[in-house]
């Protein structure tokens, strides 16, 4: 599994009272204060596109997307590169998964805590999508899925200790290698971040 391009999407628990527009000033604020472990560059506004990426925070190593694809709002973390010094130590797939989870969860946590969003956001820690955004190194095949699972399952066991974790291969022919991860019991972002540490 020789790719660094992983995507992780955490869904919002209840998106009914949330407008995409609200994320624009928050992301600009993050750029102003360089809030994350990334070089934050720009905000792309795609609110006009139905079922689209909504609002995107463009960083050098990743994109942070308030994503409405599949008509479910959530935070999509899409890693593109690994140039930030904090990623120098990544050697194994497990290291990389841990790093990707850390970045995505940190962004969820900071969004939930941002004063402009008034504590209305709650991300589901027990339902997420993991995707390999690399059709060459991680094609959407059973073999690649099996290989991913070899790394993913032990990692998920540390994140959800003692819990039943469902991992489902989404097999649409043309999509990228994607797995849906579900845990029956609700779990919040803070707990996951603590376990990750």
């Amino acid at each position, binding site marked *: 599994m020789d790719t660094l391009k992983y995507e992780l999407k955490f869904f919002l628990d209840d998106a009914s009272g949330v407008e995409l527009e609200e994320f624009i000033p928050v992301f600009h604020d993050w750029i102003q204060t360089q809030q994350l472990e990334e070089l934050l560059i720009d905000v792309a506004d795609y609110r*006009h596109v139905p079922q689209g990426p909504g609002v995107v925070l463009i960083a050098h190593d990743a994109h942070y997307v308030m994503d409405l694809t599949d008509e479910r709002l959530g935070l999509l973390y899409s890693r593109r590169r690994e140039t930030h010094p904090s990623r120098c130590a990544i050697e194994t797939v497990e290291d990389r998964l841990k790093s990707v989870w850390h970045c995505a969860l940190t962004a969820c946590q900071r969004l939930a805590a941002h004063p402009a969003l008034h504590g209305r956001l709650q991300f589901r820690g027990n339902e997420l999508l993991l995707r390999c955004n690399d059709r060459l190194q991680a094609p959407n095949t059973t073999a690649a899925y099996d290989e991913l699972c070899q790394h993913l399952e032990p990692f998920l066991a540390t994140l959800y200790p003692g819990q039943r974790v469902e991992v489902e291969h989404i097999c649409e022919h043309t999509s990228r290698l994607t797995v849906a991860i579900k845990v029956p019991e609700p779990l919040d972002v803070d707990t996951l971040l603590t376990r990750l540490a």
Partner: protein
Amino acid sequence: MPHALTWKDALQGHLTPELEEEINIYDTQIELKRQGKIDERVFAETRLRRGVYGQRYDNGQRHDGVGVQQLNYPSGELTKGPQTMWDAPGMQRIKIPFGGLNAEQMETLADLAEEYSDAICHVTTRQDFQLHFVHIEDTPDLMRRLAAVGITTLEACGNVVRNVTGCPLAGVCRDEGFDITPYAHALAYFLLGHKDTQDFGRKFKTAFSGCAQHACGLTTMHDLGLIASTRLEHGELRRGFQFYVGGGLGAVPHQAQLLEAFVPAEELLPLAQAVCRVFARLGEKKNRARARLKFLIAKLGIEEFRRLVLEERTILPEEPRWTAYLNKLHATDDQPTRAGGRLGPAPHPAEFQSWFESNVYAQRQPGYAVVTVCLPLGDITAQQMRALAAIARRYNGGRARTTVAQNLVLRWISQADLPALYADLVAAGLGQSGASTLADITVCPGTDTCKLGISSSRGLAAELRQRIIARNGALDASVKPLNVKISGCFNSCGQHHIADIGFYGVSRKVGNHVVPHFQVVLGGQSTDNAGAYGLSTVAIPSKRIPEVMTRLTDLYAKERQDHETFQAFIKRTGKARLRSLLEDLTRVPAYTEDRGYYADWGDPREYSLGDMGVGECAGEVVSMTQFGLAASERQAFEAQILSDNGDYHKAASTAYEAMLQAAKALIQVQYIDVKDDPEYVIQEFRERFYDTQLFYDPFAGPKFALYLFHAHDEGLAGLNPAAVRRRIEEARLFIEAAYACYNRLGQQQALI
């Protein structure tokens, strides 16, 4: 450890050898630039000619609403052009000649948008696609994947022949003279990379239209505009084109002028080539603002320009490609895959009816229709693009075309399939009605991504679109067909000059602050192939533009006489009254009173002009000789790699070819039509540069020229590794001498 599979390996054999080599060359140039071995401007133009553009904030700075912040990109000071940081996200433009796409290409575009961009494919006003936020190091693989499905990004930017656009209804239009598709295809690929199109001072845009009256082709705003025309000669109907030249928008719009009323089809390519040669030879090269063809024609006058072009035509060396395509004109035809049919009886659901009225066009072929898929602001998600490819496969064999109104069309749809097709589009989030209506706004990227953007054209377009859709039921029927076009600056990429209601971004200083504004342009005309340009009326703060729209459309609905067009209405109403209608909207409240005016649409930062950069639309003026010399350097570099890998025979021949390439580049200073034959190049070089002593080094005399002659005479026989290494070193010295000679010639020229 196994070697990681690369796209280069994976796609070997799937690309044409020419494109494969071309992209490999680009890959090497990227490596050379990383090593600092290519001149900044040459590399910038090299990437631009492959559609690799800069983007806002690529100078490493961004105004965050409070102050200018440095963006410390990981590669430090490494650049990809003047003031353009290596790591900065960039834009990849992808040429789609006449907008023609197949399903496999659509799927590839979707894949690339997901893997290298932000999952959005953006359709431009010239039928291209653009992917934004792309890293330069991803571009070679991106190009390989496109090339594997028959798309090239070559000459998508830079001072070259840009995408050749064409009416998306070609072949199915009820009013066209004939299908322009095969001619647009032939001209696009004939001029692509042609030696006569490599030395322009500015870009060159070409458009085809099947008729004179509609707005699909916009030929009169192009450098070269071609309208299908037929003529009866000796009882036979001959195909040809009305041949227009010198149109263009930009800050100073010009209507194209008629060069020839009827150019027979077999003369189309050579006459276009002759125009290119005259433009390359006489067009302005130093002052970019005056370098488009329109300025040359304005300077010479159309009669003199015509004389020069026709004279050039007579001396053109014959090329078989001029007419070869005429034997296979039907090769580009779309064929229906389902039987034509009739739309089932009414009643249909209201949403379908509304969509049918605005988005469906009955083809001249009975039983078939063209369906417009409306893309808000020209954007389609990767997932939607893939869904659309599947829909196209289901209903028309997998064909689509982009339009200059930034939409996509599906042709050859059986009318019986329309309800099912509509349901599929709705499921994909693509079922929006309102094609070619007020809500279907044309817009350039503006401050979202363009370095030249002054105001947020996309932010304004999104806002207006939302309000128009909300008001749709209350809008007067006369208002709905009006078109709105918005540019982020005066350069007119959003084509504001030809809109009923156009806007372009400007700014105004109010107290100590700057306020985003839009200049209101009224009375343009997109019909008759962009038949008239509108006039600027008044600059209004961005945040009050929605009120401008309401006032203008309300006035038109109220005071329109009979079937008066908006253009006629504007003319009759007069600029003075229109200005007074909008005058109160020009007022900007004080900063302390309402800060909303001091930020742009969709951007909470306090507005600033600090993010504007140096545009790359104009490209870098790099001569053919400079390109040739850069290519020779790359070959010398490759020779070194081959030698390091022990392939001495290939290394020696590559080193020799590098010298030959440098010699050829120098000859092009004096004579453009240089052949590739080595004997010919040696002979020309000897006569022009050796015998004349132009190539003589001030200290070493003829020494470096003799390296070339020696390598040419000696060939490859009996070269041992040491001799090969010596030849590579000689090639390097020869290239350096060629650069020095070129510089001396430039200095002499400057003294004249």
